């Protein structure tokens, strides 16, 4: 395919800036061949769209249990269907953690660093500890350096929370009065902003959460209640 083709179709799809669109339009108007191509492709797209629109306009079939997403979520909770936690996945997570993706800035000799080391365990400190203690995912504080994702209980019943800041995301679970870090993942270098824009979490964190979580994430009311109960 030539650049010219791509330019022609970008024009057809309304993707060109105004001046360039005007110039292609003139070219097309002068050429019977291009005019015909434009008509054919418009007709083809209309036909394609009309055909598939019948799906979007049709009622969702009864056979699709997700027809009512909310009921479906409830069904799933009842069935307790979790497909995660296979040994393969555990191995992958262990490998990830063993590699140690803690960034240098996270463990700092200064007391102000977000991570403390005690008895060989990593605990949240400073801003991170505050965020885990105080923030509600359902009522995020504007401009907070750390944002909280979900809150849930692990298999032992401990409260766990995911968090994200500009450089990393992780999982911390309650250990007595403190938040012990179960995983901390640095966003890939150079992908940080795109990453956040895409609205997706680190796949390693996702796998860790899936294998740690027992039941479902707490909803807003449960999260508030857990906070009131000091995350016990």
């Amino acid at each position, binding site marked *: 395919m030539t650049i010219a083709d*791509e330019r022609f179709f970008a024009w057809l799809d309304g993707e060109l800036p105004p001046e360039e669109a005007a110039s292609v339009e003139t070219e097309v108007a002068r050429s019977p061949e291009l005019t015909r191509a434009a008509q054919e492709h418009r007709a083809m797209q209309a036909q*394609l769209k009309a*055909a598939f629109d019948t*799906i979007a306009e049709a009622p969702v079939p009864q056979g*699709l249990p*997700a027809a009512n*997403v*909310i009921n479906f979520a409830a069904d799933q909770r009842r069935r307790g269907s979790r497909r995660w936690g296979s040994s393969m996945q555990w191995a992958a997570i262990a490998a990830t953690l063993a590699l140690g993706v803690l960034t240098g800035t996270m463990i700092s000799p200064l007391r102000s660093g977000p991570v403390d080391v005690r008895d060989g365990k990593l605990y949240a400190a400073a801003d991170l500890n505050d965020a885990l203690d105080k923030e509600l995912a359902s009522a995020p504080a504007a401009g907070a350096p750390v944002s909280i994702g979900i809150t849930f209980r692990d298999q032992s019943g401990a409260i766990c929370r995911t968090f994200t800041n500009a450089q990393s995301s992780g999982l911390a679970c309650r250990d007595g009065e403190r938040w012990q870090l179960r995983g901390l993942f640095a966003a890939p270098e150079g992908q940080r902003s795109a990453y956040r824009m895409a609205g997706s979490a680190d796949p390693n964190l996702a796998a860790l*959460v*899936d294998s740690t979580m027992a039941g479902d994430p707490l909803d807003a009311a449960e999260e508030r209640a857990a906070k009131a109960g000091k995350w016990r």
Partner: protein
Amino acid sequence: MDSPSSFEHQLGTLLPRLRRFAHALSRDAADADDLTQSTLERALRSKWQWQPGTRLDSWAYRIMRNLWIDTARSRSRKAKLEAPPEEASVVGTDPRGAMDAAIDLGRMMAAMQHLPDDQREVVALILIEGFGYREVCEMLDLPMGTVSSRLVRGRMRLLAMVGEQ
């Protein structure tokens, strides 16, 4: 939980569009509904990964596309090797006679199946779902040149198969 702004509610309103996209990707209606179902399951389970303020539709489409790749790509690669798509072999001999909507959908699904996967997803997202080029680049993590050349090749091939003579 079921307020109009809730995640579940918003996902529910996307359902017809997600089904349409699933039909454009899949071989038949049963596969499309399986894909829709697993996309919703995955989206509900991954709810916490979605950042409020970002577009839920792009996020959900992306989940569907990735699931489709996981389940269908190997199969369709194999199919491509066995039977290289030949223009106009799918659609019968009388495209003008097939304008009835139901027949047309079957025809269009068959035609879409004859596009290579990488062209099919771009054609579906732009020509059927109405996303802009840039949105599709972000959704598929592809550069603009790649998206636009796949779109050109895909739509030329489609026209050759289903276009009116």
